[in-house]
């Protein structure tokens, strides 16, 4: 029997009934009165000088209120680096970049007018990859990089296309590689792609008569938006209100600042009237940011029996045209560069390189899914070279308590049990029954493994808050700054508070929408940290409220407050439960029969701030940037057709050490959803560019995501090694399930074909080409 009543239970989602009845409202469902509509003119060129923009005809079109271009608001914004004009200024740097916006009475008038805008471009040389961008004679995407403001943790290299360079220097990597008995070296790559959250980004902005700016936005980070708007537009931060209803999928794509800056300019141009801007799907994929691309070079050195001694890692990220979150993705990938392996000597240079691709922002897995692909492929290559089973070599090198991370910080007593995860994943995928099985003449079954680790990439002073207020019936209202993005964190928070109150989560009312005017400050609903950090804050708020309840109740009950406990909607003497009061008699002050009242309402407050975190040293990477590490192992089984190289992913398994499972169904749902996205990355998702770096598959007809019936059978397990500082011992789990999957699939397909497949997405035709090339090379 569990010691808990609410933790570990699959309590139904608090937002469920609305969602299955079509009553959940998202930003685009709002239609305030007096609403104007905006539409964007986007660039058809990837890199070009803007010679002229002729807006005359558009301005004269029916229903048009205003047309704005970059020249009207020559500002550059940015999350970490101020490199990004909301509308292109003088030049465009990626296909799909917004160059002008029309504000009109109706959306169709706005869209109609957009077509009347004439833009003349003069093409510039394009940068098509990090390699391209790092060439000595490469054109500079941002000539004025040295003028951009940026946070200290980012290290741009003006005069080049490097927006950030993170260095990890642990031990003596070059020497250790030279001494190693086994060395493997290879290159790996994947193109940029998109989140494809089903809800596209949308914003409704308005300036009130008193100058207050009110923005409804599809955001994961309402407070970040508020603070950046204040910083960039010089608006007192208290005069900005962000209202963020639940969003239709985020996956990182709605973190940071998205359409809000442009939204502010639109309402400004429309005299403060409310203006709605909704991305259409193509704009959401091309004009707004997506998933980062990568070129990686990995060199691993090991002893003859497969113990890793050194890694030299060059991660070159394809940031696209603007830095946005990419500079921190490349940073996070450096911090965790080795994957969950104990490697004493590490050199990593992680470069975030500007290219003429749609730019990148946060994406589920944040740097870790990216680094895991080259690392997990490399581990299989190492296993092959050492003649050791891929699972065994992972077991041998798996990180554990007492080892150090690439940033030389100690893996402490809170380190999860990765070996147990590997063991369970291997069992679930029946690894011992063979990882390569010839089914018949034309079909092979193969399995692949991939480990994962993930720590939240966030500023060291990241915090969260929670407030508990009470209704007259004694039920609770829980206010946090956490966004409901589909992950069910609010349900988890309700369970945590319910556990403390000894009540059912039904008695915890959740404020679903976040309003920055009233919600406690929260950094961002990202980095899989919500339940851990807001959970801690909520627990503290619950304890604070319980203290107040006991204090109030102790007076009429004539007992010391510390003898009282709260449970089942009552406060009572722990050793004599019949003596007590219902909560509704206490939470708004106790009232005596004669009308005298004491103490007043209970307001529980709690907060949490990450403890003992630091930035990293710019030269060595030394530091303690990681709140916690979730560790895990994943594996897949695929079936490949040797004629046309089509394949199916039959089974995907995952075991992660999450400290404590608060809600088993929701936890499973997060992992399964993340796995399916990992499959998407491995199987089909990637932008395809033509020679002018225009995206040729920027519509859902051509950009293929996983559909019903293409998903594998999932088997999910959890290990629970408590995280000492996590509420009830929990760690983050929302993103992690994606991380090991691309590597696992590429490993399985490499095994199935006998050919090194070091890229994703793995389309049947590409596999066929690789097999052809390999056999051609063999025969020379």
């Amino acid at each position, binding site marked *: 029997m569990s010691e808990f009543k609410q933790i570990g239970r699959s309590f139904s989602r608090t937002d469920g009934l609305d969602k299955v009845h079509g009553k959940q409202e998202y930003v685009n469902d709002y239609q305030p009165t007096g609403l104007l509509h905006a539409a964007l003119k986007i660039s058809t060129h990837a890199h070009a000088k803007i010679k002229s923009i002729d807006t005359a005809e558009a301005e004269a079109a029916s229903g048009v209120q205003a047309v704005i271009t970059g020249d009207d608001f020559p500002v550059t914004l940015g999350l970490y680096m101020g490199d990004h004009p909301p509308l292109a200024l003088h030049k465009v740097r990626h296909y799909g970049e917004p160059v002008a916006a029309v504000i009109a009475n109706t959306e169709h008038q706005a869209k109609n007018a957009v077509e009347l805008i004439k833009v003349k471009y003069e093409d510039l040389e394009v940068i098509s990859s990090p390699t391209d961008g790092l060439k000595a004679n490469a054109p500079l995407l941002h000539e004025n990089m040295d003028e951009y403001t940026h946070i200290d943790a980012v290290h741009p290299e003006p005069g080049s296309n490097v927006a950030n360079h993170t260095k990890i220097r642990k031990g003596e990597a070059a020497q250790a590689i030279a001494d190693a008995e086994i060395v493997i070296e290879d290159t790996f790559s994947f193109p940029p792609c998109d989140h494809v959250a089903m809800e596209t980004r949308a914003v409704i902005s308005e300036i009130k008569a008193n100058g207050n700016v009110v923005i409804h936005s599809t955001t994961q980070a309402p407070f970040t938006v508020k603070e950046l708007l204040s910083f960039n537009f010089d608006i007192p931060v208290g005069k900005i209100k962000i209202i963020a209803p639940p969003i239709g999928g985020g996956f990182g794509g709605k973190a940071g600042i998205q359409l809000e800056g442009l939204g502010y300019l639109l309402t400004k141009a429309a005299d403060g009237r409310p203006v709605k801007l909704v991305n259409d799907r193509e704009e959401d994929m091309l004009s707004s940011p997506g998933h980062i691309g990568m070129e990686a070079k990995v060199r691993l050195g090991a002893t003859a029996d497969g113990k890793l001694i050194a890694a030299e890692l060059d991660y070159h990220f394809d940031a696209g045209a603007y830095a946005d979150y990419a500079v921190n993705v490349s940073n996070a990938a450096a911090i965790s560069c080795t994957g969950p392996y104990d490697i004493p000597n590490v050199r990593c240079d992680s470069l975030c390189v500007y290219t003429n691709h749609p730019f990148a922002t946060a994406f589920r897995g944040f740097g870790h899914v990216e680094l895991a692909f080259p690392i997990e492929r490399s581990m299989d290559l190492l296993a092959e070279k050492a003649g050791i089973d891929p699972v065994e070599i992972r077991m041998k090198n798996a990180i554990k308590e007492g080892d150090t991370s690439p940033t030389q910080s100690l893996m402490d007593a809170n380190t999860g049990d990765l070996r147990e995860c590997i063991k369970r994943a291997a069992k679930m995928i029946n690894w011992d029954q063979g990882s390569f099985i010839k089914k018949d003449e034309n079909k092979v079954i193969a399995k692949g493994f991939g480990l994962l680790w993930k720590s939240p990439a966030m500023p060291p002073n990241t915090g969260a808050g929670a407030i508990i207020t009470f209704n007259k019936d004694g039920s609770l209202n829980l206010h946090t700054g956490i966004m409901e993005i589909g992950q069910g964190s609010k349900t988890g928070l309700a369970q945590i508070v319910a556990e403390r109150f000894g009540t059912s989560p039904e008695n915890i009312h959740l404020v679903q929408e976040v309003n920055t005017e009233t919600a406690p400050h929260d950094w961002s609903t990202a980095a899989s940290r919500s339940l851990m950090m807001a959970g801690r804050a909520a627990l503290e708020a619950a304890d604070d409220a319980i203290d107040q309840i006991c204090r109030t109740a102790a007076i009429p009950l004539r007992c010391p407050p510390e003898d009282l406990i709260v449970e089942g909607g009552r406060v009572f003497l722990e050793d004599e439960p019949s003596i007590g009061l219902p909560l509704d008699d206490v939470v708004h002050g106790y009232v005596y029969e004669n009308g005298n009242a004491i103490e007043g309402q209970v307001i529980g407050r709690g907060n949490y701030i990450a403890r003992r975190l630091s930035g990293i040293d710019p030269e060595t990477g030394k530091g303690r940037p990681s709140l916690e590490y979730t560790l895990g192992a994943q594996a897949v089984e695929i079936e490949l057709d040797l004629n046309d190289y089509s394949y199916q992913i039959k089974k995907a398994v995952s075991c992660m050490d999450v400290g404590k499972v608060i809600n088993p169904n929701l936890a499973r749902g997060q992992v399964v959803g993340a796995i399916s996205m990992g499959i998407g990355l491995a199987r089909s998702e990637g932008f*395809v560019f033509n020679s002018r770096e225009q995206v040729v598959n920027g519509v859902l007809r051509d950009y*293929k995501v996983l559909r019903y019936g293409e998903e594998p059978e999932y088997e999910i397990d959890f290990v629970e090694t408590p995280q000492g500082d996590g509420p009830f011992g929990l760690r983050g789990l929302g993103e992690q399930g994606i991380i090991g999957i691309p590597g696992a699939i590429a490993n399985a397909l490499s095994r199935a074909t006998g050919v090194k497949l070091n890229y994703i997405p793995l389309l049947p035709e590409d596999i066929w080409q690789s097999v052809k090339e390999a056999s051609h090379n063999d025969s020379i």
Partner: protein
Amino acid sequence: MIPFNFKYYRPANIEEAVELYQQLKADGEKSIYYAGGTEIVTNARDGQKKYDALIDLKDINECLEHGEKNDEYVFGACLTLNEIVEKDYFPLFSLACRPVADHTTRNQLTMGGNICGKLPYREVILPLMLVEANFVFAGPEGMRTVAAAEAYDKRMLLNEGEFLVQVKVPKKFAELDYHDVRKVKQSEVDYPLLHLAALKDEADQIRIAFSSICAFPFRLEDIEAIFNDSQLEMEEKVEQIVAKFPIPIKDDKRGSADYRRLLLGQSLAEIWHKLGGDA
């Protein structure tokens, strides 16, 4: 969201539709026949294709006919692909319809729209090319019934102002052995890399029609002669068949010509195997 405006008409019969088209033309208006709308509405969304008027054919009885008449099956042009699949008069036809787009879209997407559309795939025409189907057109000159060979060459040979009313298929073909192969890049819900439909006729000769491998669907007697030549090895057949293609194999973002060529060889072998060849 369609940004521009157009007029929408719903004629009740063939004559009204034809006259309306002529009238609009005389008034200088660009009009277009409208059926399922899956192509027209999605293309109109980005404002690239503009029309002044849509003439919806879905109230015209003849366009909705679905049944047997004498020794023919009649398929109205405005039948949705799902309706054709569900009645399943002619299994090879159903087989060709079923993988197009997705199930929900097929509740809208019409046979006529697919055949007369501007996209290169037009998969639904494949079986009709194999079975001596007759196409009924209506236009300013009245109605005409045209054999498949004359009705289609690279595209439906509709005159200005004409539309497809229905297609008639001799019943005897429904009895014959058939096979259908559709290959995709990765996801099944996608335009195909190639789609072949084949049927073994009464003389034991295999007929094959090709879609998506080139820029338009086609069927060629020369190709069938090679395919049915029992003296040739399969690889030789494929080689010679490709040489007879009216235009080079498509090379685009969905697949290279080389990969399509590989799939073609495998698909032809599969058809040969399934339909017993000369065995």
